[in-house]
């Protein structure tokens, strides 16, 4: 039986921009400082203070717009949105309304699970992106007298935000989460924000309605607030979807209202209904002339835009020939992908063919580099250094078994792979003359064993490998040692 209802979801996502200073004043945009230490006349709303837009914030907002395939408006307008709340210093928030910075974008999402027998693979429209200022934050504990009253920390007041408003294009909680994840990944990737949800750098509100399948009009919309992790987003949307479906199935009406998600109880509860909804009295901010993009800003933002993970992974597969899952893992993180590309470039610069360099580099980065990073949070060796190591490996100048030791030493000392190879006694071992010379000498020194081998007692090679490894104090790669010995043993065969 097909589902008689259809859920319709749109998201409003607030993202703090990673600027040095606030949106309209020079105070630091910094999280985690003692309360009310980043304040001035402007962001505290003193009489006479005036806002001046932060160019960097505009640039980042434009970049976000481009990253979400939006059309960027050369001219947009700051407006005032009025309401009274203790964390709002001026009694209004400076935001955009009628003429936002960016419009008409889209984000592609793909879901592994199928829905109604169809795979989910669609574009979610971005209705608009607007620039606005953040409010302060109420503080309920941790200061003298907090048992009797609440305080306000204005450090966050005036921090630049973008609000990304989607079209009502999602049809399930899972789709909404996929959209939100993709949004976050792009925002982080183009360095608009670190989008750290624990710090509140990315905050989500959802609009949910349910209608009968086939209806053209949307159902009554409920706004959900306080969805501050992907898990809560999913749970709140699922709860709300179910609540509305049950109401409709039971012949009841859904009330248009704002509901708050209670994380502890896993339910949504009414916050305020539309009847008491506020009238925000928007009008253009007379302190701020229309925002015209400065000459060159759009081009600068465009050129600062990175290649996004999907395209990047595809390129790694087709041009570098690396495996799909490896390509995906590397491309998903911009710093890792940049590191990978730097490594491959260094290796090919040293003479390695791209495909070989890429294969070795991808292997090393997804294992050794990432696990070392987990220890101290950074890439231990610069990509040029790793590139040299990759080249030595690809050119078989360095035995595989020695590479890890060299890499460790490289990370610890910061010296080059070639220097360390010599120092640690690995030079000339891999496919080098030293390996062959030693093998030949050993074969000559043990004529009986040689003859036994030649007579077909192939197991004797184990003895030779043991000898050779001892001679080279274990530095040689066992497989390569074996190959060198085979060459030496075969060489004289048929003679004498």
């Amino acid at each position: 039986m097909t589902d008689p209802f259809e859920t319709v979801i749109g998201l409003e996502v607030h993202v703090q921009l990673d600027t040095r200073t606030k949106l309209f004043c020079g105070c630091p945009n910094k999280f985690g400082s003692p309360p009310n230490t980043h304040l001035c006349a402007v962001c505290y709303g003193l009489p006479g203070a005036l806002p001046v837009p932060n160019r960097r914030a505009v640039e980042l907002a434009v970049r976000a717009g481009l990253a979400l395939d939006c059309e960027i408006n050369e001219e947009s307008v700051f407006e005032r949105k009025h309401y009274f709340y203790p964390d709002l210093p001026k009694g209004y928030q400076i935001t955009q309304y009628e003429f936002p910075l960016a419009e008409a974008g889209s984000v592609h999402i793909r879901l592994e699970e199928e829905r109604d027998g169809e795979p989910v693979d669609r574009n979610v429209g971005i209705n608009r992106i607007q620039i606005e200022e953040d409010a302060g934050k109420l503080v309920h504990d941790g200061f003298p007298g907090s048992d009797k009253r609440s305080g306000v920390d204005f450090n966050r007041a005036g921090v630049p935000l973008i609000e990304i408003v989607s079209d009502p294009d999602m049809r399930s909680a899972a789709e909404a989460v996929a959209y939100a994840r993709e949004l976050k990944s792009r925002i982080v990737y183009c360095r608009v924000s670190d989008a750290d949800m624990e710090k509140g750098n990315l905050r989500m509100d959802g609009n949910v309605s349910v209608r009968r399948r086939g209806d053209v009009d949307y159902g009554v919309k409920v706004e959900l607030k306080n969805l501050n992790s992907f898990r809560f987003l999913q749970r709140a949307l699922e709860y709300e979807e179910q609540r509305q479906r049950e109401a409709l199935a039971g012949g009841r009406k859904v009330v248009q209202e704002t509901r708050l998600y209670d994380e502890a109880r896993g339910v949504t509860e009414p916050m305020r209904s539309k009847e008491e909804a506020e009238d925000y009295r928007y009008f253009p901010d007379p302190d701020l002339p229309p925002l015209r993009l400065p000459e060159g800003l759009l081009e600068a933002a465009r050129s600062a835009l990175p290649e996004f993970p999907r395209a990047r992974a595809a390129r790694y597969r087709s041009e570098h020939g690396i495996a799909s899952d490896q390509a995906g893992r590397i491309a998903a993180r911009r710093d890792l992908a940049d590191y990978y590309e730097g490594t491959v470039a260094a290796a090919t610069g040293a003479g390695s063919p791209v495909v070989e360099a890429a294969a070795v580099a991808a292997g090393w980065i997804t294992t050794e580099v990432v696990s070392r990073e987990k220890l101290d949070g950074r890439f231990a060796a610069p990509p040029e250094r790793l590139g040299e190591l990759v080249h030595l490996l690809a050119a078989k100048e360095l035995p595989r078994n020695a590479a890890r030791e060299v890499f460790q030493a490289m990370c610890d000392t910061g010296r080059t792979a070639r220097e360390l190879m010599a120092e640690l006694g690995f030079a000339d071992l891999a496919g080098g003359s030293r390996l062959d010379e030693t093998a030949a000498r050993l074969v000559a020194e043990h004529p009986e064993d040689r003859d036994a081998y030649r007579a077909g007692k192939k197991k004797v090679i184990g003895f030779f490998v043991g000898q050779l490894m001892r001679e080279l104090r274990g530095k040689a790669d066992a497989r390569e040692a074996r190959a060198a010995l085979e060459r030496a043993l075969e060489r004289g065969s048929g003679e004498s």
Partner: protein
Amino acid sequence: MTATAGRSCGIPHPSGGLDVTAATAARLDHAEAINRRIHAFLHLDRDGALAAAGRLERQPADARGSLFGLPVAVKDNIAVRGLPSTSGSAVLRNYRAPYDATVVERLRRAGAVILGTTNLDEFAMGSATTTGFRGPTRNPVAPDRIVGGSSGGPAAAVAAGAVPAALGTDTGGSVRLPAAHTGIFGIRPTYGRVSRFGITAYASSFDQVGCLASDLHELAQVLSVVSGADPRDATSIDREVPDFTAAAARPALPRAVVACSDEDIGILDAPSRTAFFRALRRFEEAGTTIRRFRLPEAVTTISAYYVLACAEASSNLARFDGMRYGSRVAGDGTLAAAFRESRTAGFGDEVRLRILLGTTVLSQGYRDAIYAAATAARKAIRDRLSGALEPGELLLLPIARTSPRRLSDPIEAGEDYEGDRFTVLAALAGFPALAVPAGERNGLPFGVELMALPWQETTLLSAAAAFSALPGATAQRSTSPSRGAAGAP
């Protein structure tokens, strides 16, 4: 510039230098004396002024600014660091500005000595300087009468000789009207010419800092100092500041005077009408080309101004919520009550009226009908005024419909709004306008307004200089001790 210093402030010192401290002290004494009579100042900063004077005296002569030693007064809605800045409102009864407005910074840098802050209508909303919570300012020319407003304090301080020049703010006529009522000069510069940073906003798209002075020379000097783009005010405009002082010293009649029509003059009382025609005739007799021009309709003009100004005011005054500074009334303990009670108790009647009016016109259903219509009307008015003037030409307008009323006269609600019919034109258009003394009627000062196209303040100043020098001009009232020469205030 040393000429100014000598004339306006410095007392020759036995050492051969200038005794700015003594001159400042004398000014302060005089200001205190007149204040008891007319209540021009809300706060006299004796200590700050004397300290500033002392610092100036120690300045090397070649480091002296163009306003060296010039005593000035500043309207109380302009932030002066450390001084009370109440905007005439009980809600800011205990508020002191923690920073200097840009214009104040510039005055200080040029060597001016700020004697104190002066009275105004609450949040500059009014045309009489009667609505401030500390009571009205009296007209120094006729102390039983209003001084005009809202920059009544600065005008009275200048007209009474306490200071040669003062800063006011002009939203819809607040500099020009009290200038006219006290027989001094008052200029509203082009919108964007002077920084608004540090000015407690009434209606941001109209507010401009203006200068008031008994003499064109000081007016131009002060204007020169405060003009120019400010990186802290996004609406200030980066445009070269001409030499206003030179323009004021170079009398030149305008290419043409465009005077408003007889129909427009119809709302003046008879003596004011006569005085206006006398001013017009003076230009005519000097050989100036005269054209007449029908002003945009009064009802549209006044409505557009009040709709937009009140809309902006309702927004600008939202920050006075009793939460971070200013007076708070707790009410029943709920958040909503704290907001409501603080604002109800903190604001006076006129301010509450304008906030409610502004809130209404921005509300759903009215925004598109009323606010949008007023915006369109404003643009039409600006276009019409632009079309009426060529560069070098000036519009000649009355300022007040009548002589300043007696403080004891009752006024009807809305009467003062209609009186703004002429002055709000420059405010709506953003054009510069200058109030020029033009004799008397009923024994009280009469002033006319000259308005020019944007950025043409020099034309205004040269024309005012020329007009004041014309035969029959009594630009300076004999009773006004305007040139408060040092030592004789």
